[in-house]
């Protein structure tokens, strides 16, 4: 097992200003997507054109930092070429890696651009080393992003069975379901992360004031209803309040963000290659705040892991940008399950 102390901070960018902000505030890598359904944050007004991506790569490389391109949705027979063109563009742009989920696309990348570094996306649903080794043997993937479903001890067990670098989510929106194996969004709206790069898409959202309170609906389905004193949240369908046997509660998950800051010494000890911050759909201000805190925390932990403690100021800063102003260790902390 590796005990290499280096750990990369991988930050999200949905725009060129966000990318520059991330680099300026201490990101080692920035991950981005093109402006279409080839990536899992396919939102209007978000993401990069070819020229923007080119400028982003130039900016990052000039400062010795990396850019990763997410092409992590599943192409279909009638749109296959949009994905292969995106792979070609990644190679032309000199991307430091592409983050892929679809095996067919990995095969294309290996055959067409053998020098292109491949990362297995979280959308590839690899939760055990046999799966990760499969992608490594078949396509030479060099890093895997692991779904947010494993306890930390399970991650360690997984790492013992593979030489592939492991990247973990450290902060941001929390998927409760195994990524790549969730069709809840298409069941409700027709569009899913796998095929359209969206979950609970904005075009399906309606807010309505009613005598019972403010209601959020997704394609007409009531996701939540808020009293006058309650904070509202985006109606991601797994984070609504529902009725199960006459009891109304967050039956799947509360509106909350993942925050693993306190696990940092453990993650570094385990030899995790990189920590990923979620949120390409968020503003440059979010990227700035989160990157700054995580940079400070990682540097402090690398200086002296034993003396490391989570500063209250860091938690306050991160709390401000958390969903529902709540934070959790998620599945890394086993009792969460």
């Amino acid at each position, binding site marked *: 097992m590796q005990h290499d102390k280096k750990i990369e901070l991988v930050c999200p960018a949905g725009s060129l200003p966000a990318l520059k902000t991330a680099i300026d505030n201490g990101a080692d890598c920035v991950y981005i997507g093109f402006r279409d359904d080839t990536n899992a944050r396919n939102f209007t007004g978000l993401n990069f054109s070819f020229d923007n991506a080119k400028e982003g790569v130039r900016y990052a490389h000039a400062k010795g930092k990396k850019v990763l391109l997410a092409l992590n949705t*599943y*192409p*279909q*027979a*009638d749109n*296959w070429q949009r994905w292969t063109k995106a792979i070609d563009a990644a190679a032309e742009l000199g991307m430091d890696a592409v983050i892929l*989920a*679809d*095996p*067919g*696309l990995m*095969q*294309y990348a290996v055959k067409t651009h053998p020098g292109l570094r491949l990362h297995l996306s979280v959308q*590839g*649903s*690899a*939760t*055990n080393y*046999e*799966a990760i*080794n*499969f992608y490594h043997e078949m396509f030479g993937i060099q890093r895997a992003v692991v779904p*947010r*479903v*494993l306890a930390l001890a*399970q991650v360690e*067990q997984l790492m013992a069975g593979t030489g592939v670098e492991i990247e973990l989510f450290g902060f941001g929106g929390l998927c*409760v*379901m*195994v990524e790549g*194996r*969730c*069709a*809840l969004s*298409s*069941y*409700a*709206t*027709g569009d*899913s992360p*796998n*095929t359209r790069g969206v979950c609970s898409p904005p075009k399906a959202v309606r807010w309505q004031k009613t005598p019972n309170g403010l209601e959020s609906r997704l394609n007409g*389905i*009531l996701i*939540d*209803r808020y009293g006058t004193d309650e904070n509202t949240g985006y109606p991601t369908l797994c984070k609504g*309040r*529902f*009725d*199960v*046997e006459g*009891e*109304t509660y967050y*039956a*799947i*998950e509360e509106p909350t963000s993942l925050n693993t800051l306190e696990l940092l010494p453990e993650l570094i000890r385990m030899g995790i290659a990189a920590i990923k911050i979620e949120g390409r759909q968020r503003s440059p201000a979010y990227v700035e705040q989160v990157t700054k805190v995580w940079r400070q925390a990682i540097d402090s932990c690398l200086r002296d892991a034993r003396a490391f403690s989570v500063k209250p100021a860091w938690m306050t800063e991160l709390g401000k940008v958390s969903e529902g102003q709540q934070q959790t260790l998620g599945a890394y902390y*086993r*009792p*969460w*399950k």
Partner: protein
Amino acid sequence: MKLALGPILYYWDRDTVLKFYEEMAGAPVDIIYLGETVCSRRHLLRLQDYLDMAERLAAAGKEVVLSTQTLIESENDLKTLRKLADNRDFRVEANDMGAVRLLANKMPFVAGSTLNIYNPQTLDMLAGMGATRWVIPVEMSHEALVAVLHNSQSKPETEVFAYGRLPLAFSARCFTARHYNLQKDDCQFKCLDYEDGLTLKTREGQPFLNLNGIQTQSALVYNLIGELDTLQSAGIDVVRISPQAHHTGKILQLFHECMEQRLAPAQALSQIGGLMPAASCNGYWYGKPGLDFIRDKQPAA
């Protein structure tokens, strides 16, 4: 087209399961998938029990396939997986790429629906490793499926989930235990109390999802009994029925009669209504939200 019975997705007690498969041995079904695909804590039947059942069902003339767990997290999960992959008597349905690694180029296998085969390139690659059949992703439409088959070189058998509550999502968290404020590791096997899962409704009473341990299903029942002609013309080889607590035999009978054209789709649809735990949906097949139900069929593409 052949008729298949998917694995039992719920947690039933041992006697119920044994009786269920005794009945299925005489049911008009060609292929039976066996195994625990949802949760490793469900232990009333062990691998040896499944192997024994497999022998009996094979003796009754059924093609038996052993299904792997879908979410494989621990070394124990891998141990079970290896035992399945090492069996030399029955084909295995791989529901995780870890299973594919153990089976590829060693033994023919069925590529399960959670392998996410969305395009002909991925299908042909898995066929090249030994997948003799694939099960389409639950959200795949008729049109998208036809495009995959049209462009595939390898042509393994194609199977479609055609009846049952749709397995939509898998999580590390157990939602049945959560309903009781229990942790997964101390779930007290509450799933045993819900033979068809635990329905989640919106706050205005619309049945939306169905909680089944770590699996989240549709509350509505995906039902393609009215679409068997389009399945046939699309070149589908196998139609999967997912077991439910009651009337599974009768449902298989209706599908069987429809496939033999002894029963008209409209008649079948009206007869099946009284046998279902919830109303029908079929939106995915039409490229719509899965929960939609399209009554007025479009002409086959």
